[in-house]
């Protein structure tokens, strides 16, 4: 490829055209949503694409002061943080055990997790619903947490297993001769070393958990227990024509993710595609 530098690339304009048009197609819906969330109703109809002539923050005000959305946002935050913390902690402990425990059982445990990589957990929804009822967790925000943790563990164990196996064993052996316990080794040697892999696993799980609709939809009906995305489903029923409010909620539910993504785009792209290409 480098050999072709200097020769004019005639396909360049077409490449820019394709990429440029697609970029517009990606940004257009987000732009329309964002600018119109700051407009008065009439201005939306008059000029749906331009910047607002007069700023209307009424939609945002109602969302913050007089709606359940801050509560939904908090619920989602708790669910996501708790789930990911548990996935990382339990997953790395299990992966460490699978790498260093020399027994056939450890091999089977590892394969048990790997088998879950292909299976969509939705298949088990009917039984999961029954389990939540019998545990008395139905209609609680926390009902989704164990499901998300179970869902995230296969990829966590798989990724961390590969990573820990790649670490030189001398590092832990030195500590073992000194008589350090396995949990100390895990906490003060393994965890700091696998931090990059933990970040990948965290990002891989962050997006699907934060954005999940299915499990909140089938587990949670009580209003104050809803997650943000489940809360968004109420928008069209209740605020039928309050456009600035609908658009404010939609904007608020994606802007945090977009900002986080833009701040760490490389890690997001690597993390989210990690589950698929690594072979």
């Amino acid at each position, binding site marked *: 490829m480098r050999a072709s530098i200097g020769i004019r690339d005639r396909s360049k304009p077409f490449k820019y055209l394709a990429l440029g048009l697609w970029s517009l197609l990606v940004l257009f819906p987000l732009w329309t949503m964002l600018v119109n969330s700051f407009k008065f109703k009439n201005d939306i109809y008059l000029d749906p694409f331009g910047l607002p002539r007069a700023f209307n923050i009424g939609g945002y005000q109602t969302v913050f002061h007089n709606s359940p959305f801050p509560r939904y946002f908090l619920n989602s935050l708790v669910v996501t943080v708790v789930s990911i913390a548990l996935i990382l902690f339990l*997953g790395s402990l299990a992966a460490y055990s699978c790498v260093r425990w020399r027994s056939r059982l450890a091999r089977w445990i590892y394969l048990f997790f790997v088998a879950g990589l*292909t299976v969509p957990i939705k298949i088990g929804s009917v039984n999961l619903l029954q389990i939540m009822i019998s545990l008395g967790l139905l209609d609680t925000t926390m009902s989704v947490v164990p499901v998300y943790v179970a869902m995230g563990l296969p*990829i966590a164990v798989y990724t961390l297993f590969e990573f820990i196996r790649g670490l030189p064993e001398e590092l832990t052996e030195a500590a*073992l001769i000194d008589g350090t316990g396995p949990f100390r080794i895990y906490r003060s040697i393994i965890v700091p070393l696998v931090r990059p892999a933990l970040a990948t696993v965290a990002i891989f799980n962050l997006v699907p958990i934060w954005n999940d609709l299915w499990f909140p939809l*089938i587990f949670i009906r009580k209003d104050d227990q809803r997650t943000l995305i489940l809360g*968004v489903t109420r928008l069209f029923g209740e605020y039928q024509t309050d456009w600035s409010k609908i658009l404010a909620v939609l904007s608020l539910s994606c802007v945090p993710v977009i900002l986080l993504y833009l701040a760490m785009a490389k890690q997001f792209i690597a993390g989210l*595609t990690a589950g698929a290409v690594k072979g």
Partner: protein
Amino acid sequence: MKRSFRTPQDNWIVWLLFALPAVVVYAVFMAFPVVNSMRLSFFSGSGYSLNNFVGFDNYVRLFTDSEISKRFWCAFRNNWIFFGITMLVQNSIGLLFALILTGKPLKGKGFFRTIIFIPVTLSVLVTGYIWKLILNPQWGALNILLSKIGLSSLALPWLGDPRSALVAVTLVSAWQWVGMPTMMFIAGLERIPEDLFESAQIDGAGIWRIFAKVKLPLLMPIVGIVTVLTFVGNFNAFDVVYAMEGANGPPDYSTDLMGTFFYRTGIAGQHPVGIPDMGLGAAVATVTFLVLFAGILIAGRLTGERNEDPGRSGAERRA
């Protein structure tokens, strides 16, 4: 590991305790429910408890009851159309972008990568709602745009017409996920050694020949992974239809998919059942699982034969 000294390595109880919490959570909330839901497809009952063993009755109803089987085959067929269009549109656009972004030097590659991937990070429900607003026939932004540029004849109720609704929903889904195949193909293309293209170029091969003879064959494993991921994703799709059309897959069930059909029968108790019929729902889930399983096997066969690299089989398993 050299066994010259006894260490806590040999302490199996500690290792078991390390693995146990993860194993228990994963077994109780994933492995067991998945297997048990298949068992429950042979049961019926009232409400949320299933305790009458009925053999294959749920399957018999699913395939022979006139209303239920009609809805099942409709959703099944729609899902294949959904998958076909996604493969055609989303994955070929993804491949095209990957080729552009790994090809000759181009300014702003990183910028375009970032933009293309944005929708992947967003909630399907939210993007579905945004597109639903844009596509609204009366005051949607698309139709305002179309009439501004003199194409108001194209301003149609895309989501309200049974002939176009499924295509519209599929295209929105493709818009959302195109970043996935793009990044996977980029990763695949970047692993192809550059001298392969150079020698092909010296031999006088054009862009198209290099693509067909060098790049595509080497990308086949990635094509396989992308196909499997798309297949599994499409046969589990629910959010996009729920947001844009509703759980009934309107208009006239033209956007009903396996995911929405499962939701109505097993969970919500909407048409074609009156109250939640969890046994029937479990049967629908089991059939979906079998379809996925067969699809993964076939895709693995078709694209896996070309490479004997043992490391690759792991990647396919995961996809």
